[in-house]
């Protein structure tokens, strides 16, 4: 390989890294500005509640159905393994811990990114492309305060609630398959779950994860929408980037949070 080729590749790599670091910097400033200018979204709370409906309530069907199926599959797979060791009564613990600690926040986050994150990006991007945001600025209304902040806080509120509902529905799915279909003892299913699932170490940590994922997904979604080139192609690419970046961010953050929460001997 010639020296010129190596140099060209290094330059491309350098400019790629610089571009992404710059973008992260702009996105961070955007988030800071958004939080500082959230007065309108919090004072006129119905603006935020409308977005809770849009991002949260309208995502309910996909979240509840997915939660149910994930719980049912967990029960089938878990029973298969547990019964080999004569521990099929622990099925409730396995289903609940898997959902509350891990699958609830992560899968609900991935579904939230696909369903609500993409919609938020597309909506803000199209508002920009059709000059609705410029029109707002010309009416002396800050579009970040009026349009972006309510969507951010709407997502922030919705995501932990959706993750909780996902986990609850998953546990119900696990109960239907484990107790009703397979015949695991209902008392053992519920009592072992109650004894083993810890409020702080399991449930609270799961809630913290879902809050962090909610912030990450809605931050990425609103920034991508606001930053999208005002063309059909630009909005389409931004929407795709939201789903891809959010999904990777959720999986990366999940690893970091799990490492911090459930290692180092801080768990019983």
């Amino acid at each position, binding site marked *: 390989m010639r020296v010129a080729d190596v140099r060209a590749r290094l330059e491309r790599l350098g400019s790629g890294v610089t571009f992404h670091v710059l973008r992260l910097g702009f996105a961070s400033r955007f988030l800071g500005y958004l939080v500082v200018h959230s007065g309108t979204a919090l004072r006129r709370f119905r603006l935020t509640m409308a977005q809770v409906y849009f991002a949260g309530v309208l995502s309910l069907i996909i979240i509840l159905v997915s939660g149910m199926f994930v719980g049912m599959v967990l029960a089938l797979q878990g029973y298969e393994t547990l019964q080999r060791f004569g521990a099929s009564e622990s099925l409730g613990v396995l289903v609940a811990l898997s959902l509350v600690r891990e699958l609830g926040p992560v899968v609900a986050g991935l579904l939230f990114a696909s369903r609500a994150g993409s919609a938020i990006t597309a909506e803000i991007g199209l*508002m920009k492309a059709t000059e609705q945001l410029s*029109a707002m600025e*010309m009416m*002396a209304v*800050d579009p970040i305060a*009026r349009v972006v902040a309510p969507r951010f806080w709407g997502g922030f509120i919705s995501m932990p609630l959706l993750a909780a509902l996902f986990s609850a529905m998953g546990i119900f799915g696990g109960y239907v398959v484990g107790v009703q279909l397979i015949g695991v003892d209902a008392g053992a299913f519920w009592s072992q779950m109650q004894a083993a699932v810890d409020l702080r170490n399991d449930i609270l940590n799961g809630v913290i994860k879902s809050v962090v994922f909610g912030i990450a997904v809605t931050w990425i979604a609103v920034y991508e929408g606001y930053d999208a080139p005002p063309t059909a192609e630009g909005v389409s690419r931004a929407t795709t980037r939201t789903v891809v970046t959010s999904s990777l961010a959720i999986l990366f953050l999940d690893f970091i949070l799990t490492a911090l929460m459930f290692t180092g001997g801080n768990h019983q």
Partner: protein
Amino acid sequence: MQQSSGAQPIVEIRSLWFGYDPARPVLRDINLEIPRGSVVGIMGQSGCGKTTLLRVIMGALRPSKGEARVLGQLTNALDVQGLYAMRRKMGMLFQFGALFTDMSVYENVAFPLREHVALPEDLLNDLVTMKLNAVGLRGAAHLAPTELSGGMARRVALARSIALDPQLMLYDEPFTGLDPISFGVIVRLIRELNDSLGATSIIVTHDVQEALGVVDYVYFMAAGRVIAQGSPDEIRRSAEPFVRQFVNGSSDGPVPFHYPAPGYDADLELAAS
């Protein structure tokens, strides 16, 4: 444009330069004055810098050199709060209306009032109804923007832009894509609203013939400069070749029909055969 009275012009631009890249200025040494109460056209070919000039006037872009004084304030020096305070006295009609698609016609017109003025709902309702009546669309208040024709959407956007009774109205290509009836309605509304509100209007357009019928004065732009100015009659009689080509709609002239390209023979590879 010369002032008819001693009043300060509502827009005053002095030796203004602007460029996204300093090496390639989009606006070059612009000087203009727009007196209160007038309807002024800024005309020229697409890409000549007229929309950029409008964005400088509305404070969305800051001049690289020179100064822009709008409503008595130097826009160069305004911070965001100052800019927003100035824009409350301005209205703007965007090329395709830019209506909020998640709101009804009524809510679109009510939007600036709800955002800036704490009015009782019945008073707000009266104001919105009056603004919609002024553009002839009182009966369309309940419709969604997607149910409107292009001309109707432009009229709703006009009603929204005059909701706060602006002193200065800006129109960005207001005639684009309108049928003759809608066009006639918009022309009449621009003049009537300007006169009844006691406002001043700036129309940025490349629809020269149509605009000459409604404006009091014209600034003609080419390649980022003002190359001609005068009353509509003076512009029609102008000897400036570019203005003549534009007013007459000639396909060839100072603005060539062909985009710069290598020789036609070379492209068709005639020399090789």
